[in-house]
């Protein structure tokens, strides 16, 4: 009995390795899923005409050659909006700022759709569609 040990040295090392790998995996999951990256896509009559990096951290307004009367605005906080349009109903401008996956705004009379999509593959945690604006 006196020769029995609770665990061999090699077993302890194996358990420690498992714990370290698990810890790294958990940290990686938390880190990368918590900072899920998104981007904005701008479509003109179903054609993707621009992809906007929402992590620029610089505020700017811009228009596209397809219609320079439709102006977009990128904000420092990573949101984006239709800033101005010469469309009759102004629904696009009223839609305000969007920033999370699944959100979108559109200027029907001018043929523009602005939508937020994951920067990488769509996964289980991403919202599919957002309503309410």
């Amino acid at each position, binding site marked *: 009995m006196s020769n029995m040990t609770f665990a061999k040295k*090699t077993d302890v*090392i*194996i358990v420690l*390795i*498992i714990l370290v*790998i698990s810890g790294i*995996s958990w940290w990686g999951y938390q880190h990368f899923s918590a900072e899920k990256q998104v981007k904005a896509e701008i*479509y003109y*009559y*179903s054609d993707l005409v621009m992809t906007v990096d929402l992590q620029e951290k610089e505020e700017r307004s811009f228009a596209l050659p397809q219609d320079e009367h439709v102006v977009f605005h990128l904000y420092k*906080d990573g*949101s984006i909006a239709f800033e101005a349009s010469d469309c*009759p*109903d*102004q*629904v696009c401008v*009223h*839609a*305000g*700022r*969007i*920033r*999370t996956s*699944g*959100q*979108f705004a*559109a200027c*029907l009379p001018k*043929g523009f*759709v602005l*939508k937020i999509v994951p920067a990488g593959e*769509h*996964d*289980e945690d*991403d*919202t*599919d*569609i*957002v*309503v*309410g*604006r």
Partner: protein
Amino acid sequence: MIKKLSVVILALILALNGASCASQPENKRYEAEFLSLFDTVTRIVGYAESKEKFTEQAQLLHDSLEEYHRLYDIYTDYEGISNIKTINEQAGIAPVKVDRRIIDLLIFAKEAYKTTNGQLNVAMGSVLKIWHDYREAGIDAPENAKLPSLDQLTAAAAHTDIDKVIIDEENSTVYLEDPQMSLDVGGIAKGYATEQVAEIAEKNGITSVLISVGGNVRAIGKRGDGTAWKVGVQNPIDEQGENVCDVPLTDASLVTSGTYERYYVVDGQKYHHIIDPDTLFPANYFVSVTILCKDSGMADALAKIFNMPYEEGLTLIESLPDTEALWVFQDGTLKYSSGFPIE
């Protein structure tokens, strides 16, 4: 020692790969948008084995929605089609022979009128047209934006009796008895059409699609990976555009009505497009109301609790099976019915 370590590492790698494979969707995810239907954006998200297969599915949904769009249009004529506009033009003159899908919509609308205690009234065209014209003029020339007078609205409201919409199922005709009345199905047509098209899709073997017609969302099945669809409800008064909540959706509908997009400004005050049939003015209890239930048409109709005080709306919602609601108040307060699923 090395042998044991190898076994453990191999086991870990297999476990990680296994987890990765388990979450891998069988089909790929695709999205499509259409701008030509119901004067709004139609979005389709689906899982299919190939892009061609998804395109085929999206085309079926588009074509079916387009048929409903033409039938329920109140502004445009289409060759060979008698639509809601045709019925309005024949008010007080003669019954109009129409497609069965118009008959079904109007029967559904009459039922919804009762369910919503008159808040959804498709016979309110005369009143809604006045607001529509004032809103368009106010957006075109904001400096001259005006409100319609109560006298003008009250006079129009005398021609909104839904019992004067005469439906003859046998002969497939609709007749507006009052020559000054008109139909406006904008409060129900998108939701009703979305439901019908979802059922057509299911009959055609489509099993994993999310359809949104201007905020009327209908889920068919689940995502390709077997998880529920996730639909976000945006906070209309949050300038940064945050969502109020995400709602898991499987074979169900979610519809939001709000004041945020279609409005005009008179003397610094916003006047939106949802008109209370009792006051004949836009209701101001909430900035948005969201309904969750199985049927998209019913969800659209029930969204008219927007015009009711919260307690009255809550009583109605709680009296209906498998129906939930979310209210966003003017000051940002959120209230939910008892079973609303919040994520």
